[in-house]
């Protein structure tokens, strides 16, 4: 069999015939099944992320609270001194914190995802698993952090004697849009950073700008003119989502369906784009990372 060709290794061609060159084909159903089978792995990776992050620290999980609370204090003390911010009668710390929670979820997941493939290259080079579990696990880790940070919101409610309205029923729907957008950005970014390492540093700056380009410290309506709001919603779905959280939970209104719809569609596009790009680039990860 092979023995025959053994005597003449020169008989092997210099190039593989083009018809057998490997092309990655994406089977959505198979890929989704595989991802579903790896759900426990996402859990383990999340646990690992959180444990290894807070291991050897004194404050441990308190750190997930400290970042948004500090920002909230900074906004309350300084930002309000220089500009009057229209909150619609809501105590400003609560107003800011309701914006900061989705924002810190998004920025936490995105900044971690930019490094996740490179950081895990030891694992990636040894064991097979659907690669998207790594960026997804950064999203779930950020979700756990955000859940911890919610404690501070409850404290704020209690201190200010403020009660959330019945609008909380909208929270799950708004969260879905938020998570979709975050997952899309994380998938795209984690794959791109493997090839363009500069992104790792670029992301830090973009996130800092994003904090002010998103209605976290202020309200959407006071800064973006009505006519431009649909365009804004398409570019930055976080805006309508944060505005939606405030409108429903704090004010008790319904969210602005038009803007939220645009944000939802935009988020779906991000997820689809992120997934396809990620799967395309996946084949080269272990050659580079």
């Amino acid at each position, binding site marked *: 069999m*092979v023995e025959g060709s053994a005597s003449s290794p020169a008989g*092997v061609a210099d190039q*593989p015939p083009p018809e057998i060159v490997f092309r990655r084909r994406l089977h959505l159903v198979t890929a989704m099944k595989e991802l579903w089978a790896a759900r*426990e792995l996402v859990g383990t*990776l999340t646990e690992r992320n959180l444990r290894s992050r807070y291991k050897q620290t004194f404050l441990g999980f308190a750190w997930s609270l400290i970042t948004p609370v500090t920002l909230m204090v900074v906004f309350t003390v300084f930002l309000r001194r220089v500009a009057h911010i229209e909150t619609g009668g809501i105590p400003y710390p609560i107003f800011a914190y309701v914006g900061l929670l989705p924002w810190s979820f998004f920025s936490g997941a995105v900044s971690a995802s930019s490094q996740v493939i490179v950081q895990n290259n*030891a694992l990636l*080079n*040894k064991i097979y698993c659907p690669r998207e579990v790594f960026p997804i696990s950064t999203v779930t880790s950020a979700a756990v952090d955000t859940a911890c940070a919610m404690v501070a919101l409850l404290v704020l409610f209690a201190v200010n004697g403020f009660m959330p309205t019945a609008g909380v029923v909208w929270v799950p729907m708004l969260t879905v849009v938020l998570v979709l957008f975050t997952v899309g950005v994380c998938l795209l970014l984690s794959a791109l950073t493997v*090839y363009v390492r500069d992104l790792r540093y670029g992301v830090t700056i973009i996130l800092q700008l994003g904090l002010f380009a998103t209605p976290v410290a202020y309200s959407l309506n006071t800064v973006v003119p009505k006519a431009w709001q649909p365009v804004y919603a398409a570019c930055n779905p976080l805006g309508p989502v944060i505005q939606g959280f405030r409108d429903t939970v704090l004010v008790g209104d319904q969210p602005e369906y038009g803007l939220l719809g645009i944000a939802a569609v935009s988020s779906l596009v991000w997820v689809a784009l992120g997934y396809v790009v990620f799967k395309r680039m996946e084949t080269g990860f272990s*050659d580079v990372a």
Partner: protein
Amino acid sequence: MLPDGSLRADRVWKRFRAERVPRTARGRYDAWSKRLATSRGSGRSYRWALRDVSFDVGPGEAVGLVGRNGSGKSTLLKILCRVMYQHAGEVDVRGRVGALIEVRAGIHPELTGRENVQLYGSLLGLSRRDVQSRFDDIIDFAEVSQAVDRQVKFYSSGMQMRLGFAVAAFLEPNVLLIDEVLAVGDASFQQKCLDRMRHVLSQGTTVVFVSHDLAAVESTCSRVLWLDDGILRQDGDSREVVGAYRRGVEEMAEVGFAADSEIRLVKAEVDGPGGAVPATDEPLEVRLRLESDVGGKGLLVVGISEGPASPIVMVSNQVVVEPRTPLDVRCAFERLPLAGGRYYLWVGVFQRNRDLLPWHPAASFEVFGPGLDKAPSAIVRLGPVAAKTIWEVT
């Protein structure tokens, strides 16, 4: 549809960038601007790590993978466990794949031993319950019961390796891919690993085993693939292929006389009784002639091996070589304790901290005699030493 535990590689090719430019944007930009600066380049150059490799492995088969450094063994393993993607061809691996690719496979330094076992289990697709039920066996085997709750970065390298092997071998994958595990670990643990590999084999797990320890490959695997510079040179019965590989390696080492040394070897002859061909349990005579321009005094060492530099038999004697006077040395073995086969005569002259004549193969010769008894797979025989025995079974 192939059954679980089978592997198939069909015309697999894999290439890497030859100039080691990373495929990152920065690397591409640098390479591109350089090419513009020099001339109309010949385009990208690639180094082929694997060329047209095809083979099939059935469930429960034990396959060894041998080849020199850089011949593509690890790349092939990585492609088999789907960590890397081939450039061309098809790979089909059925069932759960457990891989121990680098020594610390699957071991995350920041987590404790316990968490690592859990993580690796999830990566293999096992549920927490499945991992839990094997946990004690794994810890016992790896001999780390004192340290399960310690972070793995504080483990010794031997402990990390043992844990890695234990996890890969006890989580009962359908296919077990092992790369050079036996490099770390003491002798008794190596033996334990080989025993464990035989055990998983007997349970129907397919094992692909990469090692430079040819004796271990021969004793564990029934079939061996020999990769040479990315090409599958030979695929067949392990004794046959390992033998061919050994001879191939020696061709590289090249039998001959070292030239630029203080003492030169100008003649090396090996004869059996009365100038005949050497034979098992018969006398053997080695005749050497040494020369030197400056003269020298040292320990003359003569060894016999199957090819590698570690001899099976080694004898030595003090010699003094006068300047420009050839020195003839005759070394007679009363009885040659080696089984039939091909052997190599290694010669060197050594002072305390200096090699007057470097250790090198000086001649090869054939020994006539009976072959050895076939060793059962549980036993790794180190050298082909023949022993005359009288059995009484009552």
